[in-house]
């Protein structure tokens, strides 16, 4: 289709979709009047049953823990996929890796401070996720971002150790696989997959919620590693060839 033609077909289609949406919205309960059973039951039972004050995390890692297992693997598959798709890209860049160093010490100092701050906040989010807002995913992305600041404020070389697949790939696998292993442990002990096995502890403290904490940490490890590796895969491509001859690949 020519672009003009496409617009002519798209317009009525979007109008039709809009009409459908409008029809659906007319059947929805007014904003704020929602009284579906599922969430309200969980709001009442999760805290007493699982000793976690953050019901969202209780839902994510316990009641609907299987969804989160799938989610970890979506991230994992994306990482593997991006590595697969960019393998030519990375290979051709290996020979000509070049960095533009930042010379301003003040900027670097601020950067280092931010790295420290980012890591701390990231760890805090991971650790207290099942008590207050936060959790493995949020903390993991933040920590990964902080680690990658090393790349941005420093030079590529400084950052290499953190982008060592030989170290991070197994760790990533431990995170993602660990989630399943915790689930399997429950299965082996004779209960359902992903059953919360461990002592529930005192509500509102770090030693609460049983395997939610473990699953949270497994996903924190998986997400941090996946994000670092994923970003690194892309950041390899930050290196712009400076000489015309470099672009030959």
């Amino acid at each position, binding site marked *: 289709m020519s*672009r003009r033609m*496409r*617009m002519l077909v*798209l317009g009525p289609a*979007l109008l039709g*979709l*809009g009409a459908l*949406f*409008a029809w659906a*919205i*007319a059947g*929805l309960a*007014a*904003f*704020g*009047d*929602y009284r*579906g059973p*599922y*969430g*309200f039951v*969980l*709001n*009442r039972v*999760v*805290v*007493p049953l699982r000793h976690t*004050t*953050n*019901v*969202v995390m*209780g*839902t*994510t890692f316990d009641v*609907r823990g299987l*969804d*989160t297992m*799938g*989610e970890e693997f*979506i*991230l994992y*598959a*994306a990482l593997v*996929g*991006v590595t697969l*798709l*960019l393998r*030519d*890209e990375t290979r051709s860049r290996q020979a000509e890796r070049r960095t533009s160093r930042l010379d301003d010490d003040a900027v670097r100092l601020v950067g280092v401070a931010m790295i420290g701050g980012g890591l701390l906040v990231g760890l805090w989010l991971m650790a207290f996720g099942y*008590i*207050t*807002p936060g*959790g493995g*995913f949020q903390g993991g992305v933040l920590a990964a971002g902080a680690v990658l600041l090393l790349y941005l404020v420093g030079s590529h070389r400084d950052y290499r150790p953190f982008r060592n697949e030989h170290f991070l790939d197994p760790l990533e696998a431990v995170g993602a696989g660990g989630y399943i292993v915790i689930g399997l442990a429950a299965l082996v002990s004779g209960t359902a997959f992903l059953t919360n096995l461990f002592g529930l502890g005192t509500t*509102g403290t770090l030693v609460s919620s049983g395997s939610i904490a473990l699953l949270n940490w497994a996903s924190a490890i998986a997400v941090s590693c996946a994000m670092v590796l*994923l970003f690194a*895969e*892309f950041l390899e*491509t930050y290196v712009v060839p400076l000489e015309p001859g470099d672009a030959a690949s």
Partner: protein
Amino acid sequence: MSYLPYVVAAWICLVGIAGMATSRNLIHLAVCLTVTQSSSYVLLLSVGYVKHGKAPIFVGTKVGSTAADPVVQALTLTDVVVSVAVIALILALALDAHRLSGSVDPDGIADISG
């Protein structure tokens, strides 16, 4: 009776689809895809909001007090992760397309058809 939240969600979805269909740049298209997806978060969270409700985190509040639906929030969390995974993959493909054809125009990389 207020339906604005739902209308906003539908609007975002349509805008995103229009952007995807007319995009001339794969990177732009990938971002439009995340815009389309953001309509599902807006709809989910609007659906689960409860009048005068607090966040479903019971620190300092009594269990059983009015709170928003935690399920839609858990679903949104998963949805956000999906969006990161998908945009990363599509951008990786865009880079490949660019390396091979020098173009990120979706109309320009149509190598096979018919």
